[in-house]
């Protein structure tokens, strides 16, 4: 395994952490207007992610930085190529952040209602857009020989499969967010969300199965890895095991275990698709010779080494205090003076 391969694995792990952590934030955001009936419940739902959502978003920043440093040409191509998609991502991220912060600042129901709508709409858009962006990574984009994505209109990035992967992501995060809310709430609110969990699992199962078949049938070159390197089957197997464990735990009413299994499911699903893509990072639909692979798109050995030292020193601290803070704020949500 080369240093570039190691960085590919680390990058996928960082994005995986982002999807697991900010994933439930987004799920909670989407569920927010439906799960909570009055202001106190809405505050509980919001505060279930209150002290940790910004820590969770850090993983996106780290992921962006790592992509920039370790695979600069992929970063340049993706970010400029998905220009409008990312514009919408940014607008949604900004509005979602300020909605969380602004909502509680005034005691007016119109004010709060406005920011509640912004919060959940932004969460929905983010889930959809992240799925769509990821879909484009799976299908490949029209890369030219200079490493730029050449598209005529935004519509070129919106194939049916890509849109469907967006819908799948929404279903997945609804499920993940609901399982998280069950862990964090109690009483009527919890009972209400708990009733929806099987529905979301069903929705996810359906959309994920269709996506999987779609990928297998279409010639995206994502299935080759599993034929060539049989050991990589562990990723889809692990995802499947996590899925089964999740259903069993939901049935047994083990809320935290179910949420944990759902986290593993998200992580392993990403690992599966990434393993399938490997060694490609961004495929060119114009000419396979222009595709960006882990080896031709990576930074030089020296940069990767320096970054590895940074990661070895830094990441354990990040894990330590993210874990510590998540632990301190674990348990059922209680509203206090300084809550949102």
């Amino acid at each position, binding site marked *: 395994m080369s240093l570039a391969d190691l960085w590919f694995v680390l990058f996928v792990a960082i994005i995986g952490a982002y999807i697991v952590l900010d994933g439930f934030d987004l799920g909670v955001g989407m569920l927010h207007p439906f799960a909570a009936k009055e202001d106190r419940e809405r505050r509980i739902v919001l505060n279930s992610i209150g002290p940790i959502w910004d820590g969770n978003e850090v993983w996106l920043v780290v992921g962006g930085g790592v992509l920039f440093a370790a695979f600069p040409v992929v970063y340049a191509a993706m970010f400029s190529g998905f220009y409008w998609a990312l514009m919408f991502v940014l607008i949604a991220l900004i509005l979602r952040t300020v909605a969380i912060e602004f909502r509680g600042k005034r005691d007016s129901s119109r004010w709060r209602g406005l920011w509640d709508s912004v919060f959940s709409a932004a969460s929905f858009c983010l889930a959809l857009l992240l799925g769509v962006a990821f879909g484009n990574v799976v299908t490949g984009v029209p890369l030219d020989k200079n490493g730029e994505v050449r598209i005529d209109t935004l519509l070129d990035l919106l194939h049916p499969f890509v849109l469907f992967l967006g819908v799948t992501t929404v279903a997945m995060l609804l499920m993940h967010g609901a399982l998280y809310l069950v862990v964090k709430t109690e009483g009527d609110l919890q009972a209400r969300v708990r009733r929806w969990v099987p529905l979301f699992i069903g929705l996810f199962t359906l959309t994920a199965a269709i996506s999987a078949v779609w990928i297998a049938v279409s010639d995206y070159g994502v299935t080759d890895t599993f034929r060539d390197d049989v050991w990589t089957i562990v990723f889809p197997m692990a995802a499947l095991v996590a899925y089964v464990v999740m259903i069993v735990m939901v049935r047994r009413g083990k809320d935290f275990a179910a949420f944990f299994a759902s986290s593993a499911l998200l992580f392993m699903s990403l690992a599966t698709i990434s393993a399938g893509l490997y060694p490609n990072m961004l495929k060119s639909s114009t000419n396979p010779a222009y595709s960006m692979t882990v080896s031709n798109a990576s930074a030089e050995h020296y940069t990767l080494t320096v970054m590895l030292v940074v990661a070895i020193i830094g990441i354990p601290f990040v894990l330590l205090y993210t874990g510590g803070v998540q632990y301190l704020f674990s348990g*059922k949500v209680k509203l206090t*003076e300084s809550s949102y």
Partner: protein
Amino acid sequence: MGLGIMLVWMAWKHVRTGDPVWRQASVFWVKVYGLVFALGIATGLVQEFAFGMNWSQYSRFVGNVFGSLLAAEGVFAFALEGGFLGLMLFGGDRLGSRMWLAATFLVVFGAHFSALWILMANSWMQTPQGFEQHASQWGPMAFMTNFGSVLNTPSFLPRLLHVWVASWIIGSALVLSVSAWYLLKNRHQEFARRNFSAAVKLFTVLAILQVFIFGAQMAISVTENQPEKLASIEGNWTSESCAPLYVVGWVDASAEKTYAIGVPCLLSFLSYGSFDATVPGLETFPKDEWAPVNLAFQAYHVMIDLGFLFPLIGVVAWFVWWRRKREGMPRWLLWVCISTVFLAEVATIAGWWTAEVGRQPWLVWKVLRTDAGVSPTLTTGQVLLSLITFALLYTLLLVLFLFLLDRKIKHGPEAVPEEAHVSDLPDTFREVFRSRSQGRASGELELEDHVAR
């Protein structure tokens, strides 16, 4: 960063003196901090995305060098801030004074550490070193050869200190402004007095240091490393000995003339330590390497004029405050104090404009021109549209921010917290974790009685 320093200081005072007014101050200011921070996170994400979105050729070219600084910032610093922010913002009714100080310190340390990496990255663009250029499959690229010299470029240290101190000035000016406003309106007298007294001292000292040490060092760094930039920001067309330091003026770039009032010989002295020293003018440099002179000139002079004004405001306000503590400050002076936070923001933004406009036409000084760094797939219309979108969005955010800040300030601090209540809160790591696990065991969290509204 600036307000963060004030918060650390307040939390520290509470630990040291046990005076509940400092706890009250922390509870008040940490809410303002939350508001500022949310906007900081929201707009900071744009930065990281924008390199790739608008500057794909730049990103490809510098990724090997520049990207690692951004990645390190994320791993080391941003995560520290983001991780502990929750604990800091929610600490008011969860943590005792020492633990709250620790959480606050970690967030503020994270913010400063984060600025350090970002300023390393920016300094590398201003004074690049520690790399070499060669071809790759994707065109010419910069490759890192020495991480140490990438971290510590010649302009890094002066820039870091200059920016840190600028942000501290804004933080102390915010506290100064708000407490001056309370004094003016005769509200929250005790709170305002304590805050004013602390802020006016810090503001004055920092403003003086900024002008005479940190700002001056930055100017010397520009003189040494980027003489072209110095010539642009000073509107200095011809090389002259005994060059004046302008105060206000207007540059006519087409006639290559600067009409300005200035102090004779001062620029020569400040830049080279001698009144006779020759400061190279723009004429000595190729014309296609000149920055937009008038814009750079104006930005720079807004910054330094305000920079010289701040120590003056500070000294007068401090002196009057010291002499007339009993009978109160004159109203006009309170209004001047209220204005400081706005002026400090203007000065700081003007400073960034100076640095970035003055660097033109280079994206990476003498290595990559700005027009060679853009995303070639984008049309002018697209970039304009996204710029307008952001302008509208940021304006909306600014209006909302000012509206909420104004309400928060008018509402004022909550009542002074009861000492007994605060001292019940967990105040060591062990207590924090113990209270956590006890809370879970009994199915209740601490502070149940404190539950709100």
